[in-house]
């Protein structure tokens, strides 16, 4: 069964609640192209503790993109598929007619338990906890599709100001040894780095 979250509404509501000192950023791939293997990575800001716990436990990690397409192109004549004479799936001069989506608009993203494409899921989760003016960072590394994805996500978090450089270095160091797991900064013994 699909669990749909209006992430922005949830975020607004949850920020008003007591857990305003906890914020999470989830990273994952949302769209894969079948021909080139290219993909788009999304960053989600989550403030709802219930959602965060479900991501950590693995109950929901799937990502379901919502895309609006206004036009299709025919792969045979490269014209508007609605108006051309070719039919999808049929052979024309040994070429199969395919429809190519044009005019694509990304309208939203949902967290789901079972995404249609199993590669589209959250692979990394960054938790930023703040208590008495002190910040603690936790990075949960789940199964990745590509070993470079995690380092790319850490780099992305650094470049977007979500984590400082020393934290990014600490997480990168942790995940260069372990493929999956949880890294903390400062660590559980209060050590830094």
């Amino acid at each position, binding site marked *: 069964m699909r669990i749909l979250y209006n992430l922005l509404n949830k975020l607004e509501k949850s920020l008003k609640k007591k857990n305003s000192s906890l914020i999470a950023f989830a990273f994952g791939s949302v769209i894969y192209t079948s021909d080139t293997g290219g993909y788009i990575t999304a960053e989600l800001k989550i403030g709802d503790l219930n959602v965060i716990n479900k991501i950590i436990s693995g109950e929901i990690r*799937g990502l*379901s993109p919502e895309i609006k397409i*206004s036009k299709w192109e025919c792969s045979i004549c490269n014209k508007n598929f609605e108006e051309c004479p070719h039919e999808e799936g049929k052979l024309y001069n040994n070429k199969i007619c395919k429809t190519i989506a044009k005019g694509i608009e990304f309208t939203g993203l949902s967290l789901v338990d079972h995404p249609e494409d199993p590669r589209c899921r959250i692979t990394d989760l960054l938790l930023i906890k703040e208590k008495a003016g002190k910040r603690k960072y936790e990075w949960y590394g789940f199964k990745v599709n590509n070993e470079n994805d995690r380092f790319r996500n850490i780099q992305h978090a650094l470049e977007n100001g979500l984590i400082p450089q020393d934290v990014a270095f600490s997480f990168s160091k942790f995940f260069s040894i372990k493929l999956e797991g949880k890294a903390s900064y400062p660590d559980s013994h209060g050590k830094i780095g």
Partner: protein
Amino acid sequence: MTETELTLYLPCGKPLKKNEKAMLISEITSEFKSVNLSDVTVKDSFYEVKRAMPEVIELVLAVLAATANIVTIAMGIRNFLKKREDIKEIRLKTKSLQLVINGKMSDEDIIQLVEQAGKIVEKEK
């Protein structure tokens, strides 16, 4: 009488040819007329990918209409679905409501559904 404009969201699985789309729109409009809704027009159409549930989301109508019209619009959609077994259900969206209509619903089912959806909206306010 105010005009109600619909935006048609079609499933991505099979893009339609111009005549197929025109026929679909004509069939829907004709069902609206059968429930005395002659002011409903299909303004625009798009294809929508919602990857998690391709088997359920077959067709989506985004409606900008007064709530009073929703019951009648839903009945027109139900009548259309009775004839089109290839479309499992239609999601009817307004600014505040989202209803899922299927061809097996009775008039009473639809009235109840709209009332319930209205109550949820009131609670959220």
